[in-house]
């Protein structure tokens, strides 16, 4: 579709205006939209930018098969959904994520708030993921005593963090 104003460039900005309770649709190219004071940039959101970046990673074949041993997500799945599967993915996909984080944030390291408790270290987090998987297996195998023991262990690990 060509721009309704200049009739030269393709229309990429689609507007719905409401005037005196009547809907009017307009299709403009980016230049004409800007001349009319329509905000083009505001429509771009972070998710689009991330998808674009992930798309650019598409060719990196060896990374696509990377899989997290804890949650099972592959890098290819992450690329399609834009969402990671579990906290451990930041370790498993550290290499390909580095570039993405650098582009989105312009930085690679956290300098903000720290939790008061040190209980959330990565080893504990991974142990918890593994315990949960064992719990799931115990429930499915109808090993209820084992399941109860695991549940208590998980609860304990989850709530007791050492004070920093």
């Amino acid at each position, binding site marked *: 579709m060509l721009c309704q104003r200049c009739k030269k460039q393709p229309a990429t900005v689609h507007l*719905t205006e409401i005037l005196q309770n009547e809907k009017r649709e307009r299709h403009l190219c980016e230049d004409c939209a800007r001349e009319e*004071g329509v*905000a083009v940039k*505001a429509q771009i959101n972070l998710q689009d930018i991330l998808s674009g970046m992930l798309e650019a990673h598409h060719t990196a074949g060896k990374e696509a098969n990377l899989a997290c041993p804890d949650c099972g997500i592959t890098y290819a799945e992450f690329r399609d959904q834009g969402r990671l599967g579990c906290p451990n993915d930041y370790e498993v996909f550290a290499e390909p994520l580095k570039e993405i984080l650098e582009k989105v*944030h312009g*930085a690679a390291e956290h300098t903000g*708030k720290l939790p008061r408790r040190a209980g959330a270290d990565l080893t504990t987090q991974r142990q918890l993921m593994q315990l949960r998987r064992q719990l799931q297996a115990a429930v499915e195998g109808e090993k209820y005593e084992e399941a109860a023991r695991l549940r208590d262990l998980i609860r304990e690990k989850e709530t007791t963090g050492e004070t920093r």
Partner: protein
Amino acid sequence: MKLDDLILSPSPWLALGGPQGDIVLSTRVRLARNVAGRSFSSRLRPEERQELEAYLRQAVLKALGPDHVTWFELADMPEIDRRCLVERHLISRELAAAEGQRGVAIDAAQRFAIMANEEDHLRLQVIFPGVQLQEAWLEADSVDNRLEEQVTYAFSPKLGYLTACPTNVGTAMRASVMLHLPSLVLTKQIEKVFRAVARMRLAVRGLYGEGTQATGDIYQISNQASLGRSEEDILKTLGAVIPQIVTYEQQARQVLADESPMALDDRIFRAWGILTHARTISSDETLALLSAVRLGVHLGRLQGVNIGTINDLFLLTRPGHIQKIRRAELSESQRDVARADYIRKRLGSN
């Protein structure tokens, strides 16, 4: 606190007005948190989701006290009610539309809400009227500290709070300020503001977040980057940019009043005329007209109109709220009639 009472009460962030309230509607600070040792929400099996919701509900109520917050389950909540919570910015559109077990804790003063089983396990947000970046952050920080006594967060010393989407990792904080900028739109300078804002790694969105149109000349400006700078630094950047935009809007208002007072008054009074006499009106037209009326009241050109009522109407004329007020499920055309009736009633005309 009953859900109906909450929905039918004025929204404090909108009704009260705050610092620079003529231009800045509200300040929001949102923190994303995940529970350590669990998959992120999207990878949870239904029974895990259910177990997590129960765990979070218990933790939140214990941390904040059942007298201070009320837990609402969303799975069996009627669609209109969920819509109203979105319109009040108490839950996200994503949480409203999601499936499975999920909930939200809302404090009695509607100053903060904590969503459970959103994209991240917990999404805590604080909304204050006007520009109150520091105040909103302190409140969010304090609620977060209390939650942390009950929940062990997924955290890495290098990457900070770990989130389902890498765009949120680090502080996992999104601070945003909602501005009413009708004069910058009218004088076609809004694009300049966007360009300046984008250079500061800040994002501009419409009234209802990502991908929504800027209806009613309302814009949200927020930080894009969450990693590599502290919460204070992020707030400092926003805190430096917002007063400038406020000044631009004030200048544009002055220019309109000085250079084209007739066109300005015509716009304001036509909007007033339609709002006080229309028999059927869509929600988008309502927002556009309320925007002009709000400008007129703040410029002192339209007198004898209570600004609190106008601010209220921004929310209460939205599709969810108008049905709630009517206590009925209405089709779009029925809503347009109900909306026109309600506006005339509130503005004291026939």
